[in-house]
């Protein structure tokens, strides 16, 4: 329980950490779009993997700059094998055509099924590493500032942007607190003989109840205390307020923006023009 470092802010002072959260959020969305594009012609499918490899290299470079350790990513991927297994089973069961090979002389394994699984898996890994970079280099509070900033235009149509941002930031703020609380209650109940790992189904249900009830009770209590504390200090959601941390756009941000935009343009061009690198290179050579 105390090893939950996934998706958590990791305090370093790298260049990536110092970037403006608005830019980081925007760049992440650009990267996500890049990952969801299709590359190459309809017949060839190796282009997808070439481009993904290229994006992966860039992500690795960013991770290195940001001090995000690969081991952290692997830790997270470990919990993903089940998803991959289900993906594989679904893909294998899908009706397919094209080349295949047989195992046990009865089961048809289509090449396309394996390809699709690998394709989705790579996308997942890339997306997870992107979000990991974002969350481990940006404090949750900065992230909500960025979200609030992007929501500002919607104020015109009376979207309560400030309330949304506040709700998100409170929710984010209390994740570690609730995790600590969970850990504490689990230990307290374990001292009373609850076994959270083993046991029959009935015992397991009881074990979960003994965790969830106290957790909910304390969560409600905490929220009430917080609401009271906010009111006592004169919190008024409608009021105009200044803030402690003001987002400042710096040179580094401009450079990062230009870099990610040009990368996006390049990838977009490769996708739309259906450029095939193998054809391109053989064309150049020949």
């Amino acid at each position: 329980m105390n090893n939950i470092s996934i998706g958590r802010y990791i305090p370093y002072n790298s260049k990536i950490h110092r970037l403006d959260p608005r830019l980081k959020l925007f760049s992440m969305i650009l990267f996500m779009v890049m990952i969801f594009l299709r590359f190459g012609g309809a017949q060839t499918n190796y282009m997808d993997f070439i481009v993904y490899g290229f994006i992966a290299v860039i992500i690795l470079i960013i991770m290195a700059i940001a001090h995000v350790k690969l081991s952290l990513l692997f830790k997270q991927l470990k919990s993903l094998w089940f998803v991959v297994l289900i993906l594989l089973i679904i893909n294998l069961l899908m009706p397919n055509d094209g080349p295949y090979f047989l195992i046990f002389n009865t089961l048809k394994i289509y090449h396309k099924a394996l390809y699709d699984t690998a394709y989705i898996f790579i996308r997942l890994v890339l997306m997870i590493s992107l979000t990991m970079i974002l969350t481990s280099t940006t404090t949750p509070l900065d992230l909500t500032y960025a979200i609030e900033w992007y929501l500002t235009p919607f104020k015109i149509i009376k979207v309560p942007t400030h309330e949304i941002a506040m709700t998100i930031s409170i929710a984010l703020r209390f994740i570690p607190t609730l995790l600590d609380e969970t850990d504490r209650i689990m230990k307290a109940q374990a001292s009373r003989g609850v076994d959270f790992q083993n046991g029959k189904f009935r015992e397991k249900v009881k074990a979960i109840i003994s965790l969830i009830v106290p957790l909910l009770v304390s969560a409600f209590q905490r929220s009430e205390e917080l609401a009271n504390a906010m009111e006592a200090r004169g919190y008024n959601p409608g009021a105009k307020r200044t803030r402690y941390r003001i987002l400042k756009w710096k040179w580094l941000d401009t450079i990062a923006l230009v870099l990610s935009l040009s990368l996006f343009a390049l990838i977009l061009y490769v996708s739309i023009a259906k450029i095939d690198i193998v054809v391109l290179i053989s064309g150049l050579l020949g």
Partner: protein
Amino acid sequence: MPINFDHVFYTYSKKTPFEQVGLEDINLSFNDYKFIALVGHTGSGKSTLVQHITGLLLPDKGVVHVDDYVITPKKKENKNIKKIRENVGLVFQFPEYQLFEDTVLKDVAFGPKNFGVSEKETIERAKSAILKVGLDESYFERSPFDLSGGEKRRVAIAGIIAIKPKVLILDEPTAGLDPQGSKKMMQLFCEINKNGTQIIMVTHDMDLVLEYADHVLVMKDGKVAKESSPLDLFSSSDYKELSLDYPCVFAVATELIKKGMKIDLTKIKNLDTLVEEIKKGRDSYE
């Protein structure tokens, strides 16, 4: 019950930026004492130490012996942890948060039931535990969530007492209680202690240490900084270097001795004995 620590090391959040030393080369033996106090500043490793006794945390290195059972770093080797927890009851700080059943009686009975005590005996034990902590029969069928904070804590402690452990570990049992409630609570533990249960108490209150403990462990930065009887600890010359408080009655007595009054420090345990000694000292003074 013999409890031994043999070169125990523990680190929190290993191999992450949040890494923090929990315990460093702890060698201890808890055999000869009946009431052991564990003192030290926040983060000195007191709670970490007691959690190792019941296997809630497993050491990174080293071995903990509890009676005939052994707690080792490898998770798979620790099959007897439930047995240990039946023999060593651990009351966490603010234990009132662990209540979850719909009646007080059921909640107190939860522990013994988990350890396989028969239905009939469970109810008997629960009833006597509730009475022992100073609540009466009218509480049996009440919801634990309707009780006051102090009553909740009594119920939670009854939940551990009902397991009838041979060793009772208390993590700041009097924190947040009014002086009256805290005194009653300590009287309860004293009674349990006299009936043959060894008590290990984590506390910040040096007056409690002086009054009740027959042995003190001072923790500092994950190590045992000092180990002695309360009186030897408070009268030792290097006690100041540990930057801990003196017990109020002890401080008053030493000041009076400096002024020339004859007071037997070994007899001073609490306010009453201090008053008595001062009376005696005054008589001899005149």
